[in-house]
């Protein structure tokens, strides 16, 4: 399962790689990383249908996570990848908007990796 993580925090990649080191080693999960919405779009264009799951931050400079979500959900239809939004602001406004735009799940930071791991495994 190819998972694309979109976050402007560079360290997020390291954290994911260490947290999911066992899954990556066993090729259970394959992670790709983008540090902005635009980068994520570029990845998706280059690797059509590769990403099954997208984990995106909302607050990012440039294209926001919600814009990215809209982009993905409108352009990558067949079948659209699962998108989970992750944000530091767990306010109802962000949640409602994300859900309206078709987000599949909504997580708040700090990320509970144990819970995320379970969710991903359930998808797999």
């Amino acid at each position: 399962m190819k998972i694309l993580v979109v976050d402007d925090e560079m360290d997020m990649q390291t954290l994911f790689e260490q947290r999911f080191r066992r899954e990556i080693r066993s090729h259970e999960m394959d992670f790709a990383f983008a540090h902005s919405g635009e980068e994520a779009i570029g990845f998706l264009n280059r690797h059509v249908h590769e990403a099954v799951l997208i984990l995106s931050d909302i607050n990012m400079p440039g294209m926001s996570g919600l814009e990215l979500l809209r982009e993905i959900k409108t352009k990558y239809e067949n079948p659209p990848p699962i998108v989970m939004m992750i944000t530091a602001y767990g306010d109802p406004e962000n949640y409602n908007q994300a859900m309206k735009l078709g987000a599949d799940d909504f997580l708040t930071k700090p990320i509970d990796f144990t819970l995320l791991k379970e969710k991903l495994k359930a998808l797999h």
Partner: protein
Amino acid sequence: MRKILSIFLFLFFATRAICQDIEIDGLKKQVNSHPQQDTGRVNLLNELARVGLSADESIKNATEALSISEKLNYELGKGYAFLNLGNARISEGKKLEAADLLRKADSLGQKTGDIKLQAYVLLRSARVLQQTSENNEALPKTLKAEEIALKTGDKKLISECQRVISSAYQNSFSNFPKAIEYILKSIRTAEEADCLKCLAQSWSGAAALYATIGDQSRGLYYYQKALEANKKIGNKIIEANLLNNIGERYRLTGRYTEAIAAYKEGLKEETQPYRIELAQSNLADVYVRTDSLPLAFHYGFTSLETAKKIEDIEGIAWIDGILSRAYLKKKMADSALYYAQQGLEAAKQTGTIEFMRDNAAALADAYSFKKDFANAYSFYIRYINYRDSMLNAEVTNKSTVLEYNYDLEKKQGQIAALNQQKKLQQNFLISVLIVLLLIIITAIILLRITRQKQHANKLLIQQKQEIEEQRDQTNKALADLQQTQQQLIQSEKMASLGELTAGIAHEIQNPLNFVNNFSEVSVELATELKESVGELDISPDKKAELEKITNDIVQNQEKINFHGKRADAIVKGMLQHSRTTGSQKELTNINTLADEYLRLAYHGLRAKDKSFNATFKTDFDNSIPDVNIIPQEIGRVVLNLINNSFYSVTEKKNTSSASEQYEPTVLISTRKLNRKVEIRVKDNGVGIPQKVLDKIFQPFFTTKPVGEGTGLGLSLSYDIITKAHGGELKVETKEGQGAEFIILLPL
């Protein structure tokens, strides 16, 4: 010329006039309509007898009055009847009888005490005396009559008295000034009495008086006034008489045409032979003087015939003189001589000097015409003698009148001077009044001004008070405003601090997440490393050393994670500042809520610390309605405050000595205020030091040891109460004795 109509005679004729007049007509009707034999009829009969026209009529009425009065024994009626009978006798010239009747009337007047009757008796007695030429005695009686008449207040009677007094002065003493004085008084009284008949008589009297003293213009004036009045009264006889007199005045002042007209008009109504003769003879005189000789002869002979018929000797003397002058003008000296001699004889019979003089003059002229100068001279001398004796009388009259006029002028001068003085006094008085008025006006104005000032002052004081009140109110409002502003600044500070806190927290959270996450994953990695080290084939010492290092790493990472988690807890608390507006308000029972959270707090603490024990009490006001609040938020505040209280009482219990009787107590009470709800959380714990009181609502301020409190509880509570609910959070405390937190929520 004939001046025989003295005022006395005139009065005689006026009262004896046969003709009817309005007053008499009225009285006659009254008598006829009152046939009852009573005092009323007596009075009417007497009144009629008094004003009656003829002596016969007067006697008839008075006799009837007397007989009824005797039957009724009506003394006063008898008195007046005697008076009127006496008066009638006077007219008839029966003086002795008259005097006898008047004495009877007088005794009845004295007996009944009727002063009016007494006055009349006196007046009539005076007339008797005048007729018997006892003029000197007549005057005192008339004066006495006036004195009594004045007491009766009967103006008509008074006027008559004054008229008779005037005539007495004139006839008895030739005292013309007094006569004038009294006739004028009489006129005035008649005016006051508003009696036209009295006025006419007085005017006639005045006219005759002035005519006697030769003041023809005044005589004419009064005769004309009397004539006017008589026309209204309707007594034709008197009217004719007056016209004759008016003619006389014109004749004597040379206004012959007017004289002729007056005589002729008078003649029209005249029926009495004597007066017809009089008027005709006067006309004859005027015609002689105007050289209308045929008319002069006509009137002369006609009147002479009448005079002879009625045996008016004086008239014959007068007319003979006229005829003599007429014949002389015709140059018939013998005829002139004849008539003049006849006239002189007649005049000698009556003793009338005037006509002796006239006829003497006529004889002198006739003899002179006949050139018989000796006789002419002798008659001329006689004429001069007659004339002089006449003149003496006239001169005396005139001089007294002149004297009188002089006195009058002097008096008028004095009157004028007095009037002038009076006028001056009046002017002075008016001036004084004006000044007084001005002073009063000024005083009033001043008073008004003072009043207005007082009023204005009062207003000013009132306004000042109002202003002061307003100022006080304004000051209070300002103080309130400043306080509110202070509170606002405080709450704004708190709010911004809260927001800042949330912002900071958010910024901290991201890096902190990494710290926590990396430390967690590092613990895992280090644990894995330790396992790998165990599998390594190396010396036991080296292995032991590596294991020790990896253990330390694990331990360190765990510590990093522990403290990271601590920081995370703080950040989470801080973040709650920005989340307070989230939930919905709903109507909540405050008492239930407070009770719930009190128990929650108590049992929560008991769960943590088994040794914890404190008394908690509640005092709820059940009248509080449901309040619109966010229950979780208010609950959190209540929980916070209760936790603090329990902490405080525990602290105090831990520090107090065993000997001290200390019972840790927490009281939660609610109360309904005006448009507000109050929740109080009171403890008897350690209290809050004064120096930190200002800081307790600030974020991160805490008195608890490190790790036990975040310093956000009260800050957050403050935010919830003030920002989300528009209420107030206050504290009352005394260090060492406890604290009381007060939540005020608007209803």
